């Protein structure tokens, strides 16, 4: 009955004609599932429903869907669903390649962990005032951003995840949160608005919004007259700001240490990476030539971001603020890969992105447990955690090695590939900065280790320092937190010990980003064509 | 066509009243007096222009909607003026010094 009409109209080249299989809905499921669940959460907000369990189910489905999607993309290459049957470039389509699916899957896994953690930590008040809907819709935004093939639609998903993140970051409204949210919100709004401005101008120039179509126009036979370079620059800056690259990174250190630890973890794990992904998608696929011209500039931004980030981390007392700056430093590392721009480098960026998502989320969760145990976020004011919680210490240690880029963790592979690619193109200094920032990261994170974990113990400290008080953890919290943290930690370790799957997926993703012909083909072929 | 003439006249008269209201806004001495201009001349002005639209459309449903809209303005304009004048008075915005009476201050000394 669809599309039936009294008039006989030739729809060839307008609508997808062939029918599609239910399995093709995997392409859109990562967005629809969290939207439906988020709406359900809201509809049932006053019911005595177990919101945590619902969230776990929702995120579990999300993981399954993204996993299925990743499998499919790795098997068959990029897949596309044209919403409403309107063929590109007229309708909106989701075009998924390995890069997008890989990141969507990783974020779904982290989100599932987050849901498990939240089940033990979200208060009744937080559940009532929208923690779970925020969380769900944020995931819809994240997934949408990874999957969409339409530049304006990308903007919409950015906004969805942004407003949800506002809700999450300010939930609880303590004074620090309010101040942090002010800065987070205004600056992020500016960034997203710049993205929209660039998109409006791009539309004015090319008359299209579908990314595959944009690619065709920009890489077509006819040379595009118009300010392509400037628009590319605008996109670059807007996404660099979303990703928290220097000198547009202010919002991150100003806010990431203020909300619930879980929220920080999700933000650090997911949000900046969406910016990185958008940067990759836009600057590698759409503006490949322009990226080439901007490469040196990007390299400078990358180097400064790495160094400013890690120096910032060294300047902190609060564990979460250390981590916030390490997130920035990691962004710089990924930007370095973008500056290099070879297939190896982009694969390195993807590996590093997946690694960073897992590790930063896990580190923030670990910081949350640390804060609960020692009753303070100040590393100078805590200690004795090594004795108090060997499991936490072990997890933190592995994560610390991982964030420093040391083997045998996932962090090593990302850095290694990036260093390799930098040296391959002769960017000695960039390789040096990557390595130097790695070393300084080691110092920064192990300062935390030394102060909070190794220093002293409750049973007496030869240094003459006081013994640290350790607060007991609730049984439920301990279970959920160690489950989440444990799984994430094992993931970084597992990816370090058995990296080949990730490496080859990343290589595939990089190939797709740099040589998007199959993406383009899929976009215009559509599912079921 | 007669409709066009009627519409033309309505449009001009309506716009004239709008202008009158605007001038009244400038010339009248205090906020209370200015409200007279805004609520009466303003409503009549825009109302006439809506009627012009109703007339020219020569379409029943459009005309009825235009008139319904007019009714809506007539309903809301006085309430808006009342609320604003009342609020201004209650919080102490003074009448123009040339005002000749203020029986409200005698009866209801600015209560909240």
């Amino acid at each position, binding site marked *: 009955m669809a599309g039936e009409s009294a008039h006989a109209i030739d729809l060839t080249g307008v609508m997808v004609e062939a029918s599609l299989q239910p399995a093709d809905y995997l392409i859109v499921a990562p967005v629809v599932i969290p939207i439906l669940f988020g709406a359900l959460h809201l509809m049932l907000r006053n019911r005595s429903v177990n919101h945590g369990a619902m969230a776990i189910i929702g995120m579990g489905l999300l993981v399954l869907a993204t996993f299925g999607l990743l499998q499919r993309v790795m098997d068959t290459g990029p897949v596309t669903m044209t919403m409403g049957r309107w063929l590109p470039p007229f309708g909106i389509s989701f075009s998924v390649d390995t890069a997008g699916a890989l990141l969507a899957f990783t974020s779904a896994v982290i989100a599932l962990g987050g849901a498990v953690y939240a089940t033990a930590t979200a208060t009744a008040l937080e559940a009532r005032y929208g923690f779970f809907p925020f969380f769900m819709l944020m995931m819809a935004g994240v997934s949408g951003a990874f999957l969409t093939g339409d530049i304006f639609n990308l903007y919409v998903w950015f906004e969805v995840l942004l407003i949800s993140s506002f809700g999450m970051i300010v939930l609880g409204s303590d004074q620090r949160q309010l101040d942090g949210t002010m800065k987070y919100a205004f600056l992020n709004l500016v960034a997203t608005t710049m993205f929209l401005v660039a998109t409006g101008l791009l539309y004015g120039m090319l008359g299209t919004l579908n990314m595959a179509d944009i690619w065709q126009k920009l890489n077509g036979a006819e040379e595009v007259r118009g300010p392509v370079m400037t628009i590319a620059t605008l996109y670059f800056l807007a996404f660099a700001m979303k990703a928290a690259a220097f000198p547009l990174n202010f919002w991150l250190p100003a806010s990431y240490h203020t909300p619930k630890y879980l929220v920080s973890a999700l933000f650090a794990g997911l949000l900046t990476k969406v910016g990185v992904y958008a940067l990759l998608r836009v600057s590698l696929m759409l503006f490949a030539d322009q990226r080439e011209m901007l490469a040196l500039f990007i390299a400078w931004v990358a180097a400064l971001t790495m160094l400013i980030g890690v120096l910032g981390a060294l300047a902190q007392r609060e564990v979460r603020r250390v981590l916030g700056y390490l997130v920035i430093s990691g962004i710089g590392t990924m930007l370095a890969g973008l500056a290099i721009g070879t297939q190896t480098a982009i694969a390195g960026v993807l590996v590093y992105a997946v690694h960073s998502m897992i590790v930063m989320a896990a580190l923030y969760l670990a910081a949350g447990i640390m804060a609960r145990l020692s009753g303070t976020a100040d590393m100078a004011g805590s200690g004795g955690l090594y004795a108090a919680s060997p499991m936490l210490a072990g997890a933190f240690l592995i994560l610390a090695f991982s964030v420093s880029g040391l083997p045998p963790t996932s962090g090593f592979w990302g850095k290694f590939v990036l260093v390799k690619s930098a040296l391959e193109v002769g960017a000695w200094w960039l390789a040096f900065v990557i390595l130097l920032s790695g070393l300084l990261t080691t110092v920064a994170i192990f300062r935390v280790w030394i102060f909070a974990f190794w220093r002293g113990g409750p049973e007496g400290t030869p240094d003459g320092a006081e013994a640290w008080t350790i607060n007991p953890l609730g049984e439920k919290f301990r279970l959920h937190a160690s489950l989440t943290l444990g799984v994430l930690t094992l993931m970084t370790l597992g990816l370090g010990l058995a990296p080949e799957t990730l490496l080859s997926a990343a290589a595939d993703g990089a190939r797709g980003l740099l040589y998007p012909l199959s993406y383009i083909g899929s976009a215009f072929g559509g599912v079921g064509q | 066509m007669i409709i*066009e003439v009627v519409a033309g*006249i309505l449009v001009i008269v309506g716009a004239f009243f709008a202008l009158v209201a*605007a001038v009244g806004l400038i010339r009248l001495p205090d906020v209370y007096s200015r409200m007279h201009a805004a609520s009466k001349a303003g409503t009549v002005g825009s109302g006439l222009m809506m009627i012009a639209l109703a007339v020219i459309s020569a379409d029943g449903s459009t005309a009825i909607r235009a008139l319904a809209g007019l009714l809506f303005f007539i309903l809301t304009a006085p309430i808006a003026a009342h609320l604003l004048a009342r609020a201004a008075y209650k919080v102490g915005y003074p009448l123009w010094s040339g005002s000749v009476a203020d029986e409200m201050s005698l009866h209801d000394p600015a209560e909240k």
Partner: protein
Amino acid sequence: MDTTAFLELAIQIAMVLLTLSFFITCYRVVVGPTLPDRVMALDMLVGVVIGFIAVVGVKTGYYLYVDIAIALGLVGFLATVAFARFVLERGMSEGDRETGERNVGERKAGAK
């Protein structure tokens, strides 16, 4: 004179008058001097816009603009209500008290 041409002319005249009204009303919004003055002027501005929409409707023959006018009347009303309640809750602002007294003088000066 052709009636269509007359309508055209009428519309042109109305546009001129309305444009003038816009500016005059805006003048009141900008100079105040008091908050109720500005609010009232904003309310008036909505009225002028409604008229403008009606005239555009007449001019272009797109009568669908009538619904916009209705909705605008509604939200304009809402804005005025909100400001009235704002004035009521907040009382006179510091600045208004000064300007009010300087310009208008004692409130009951003319009261009998």
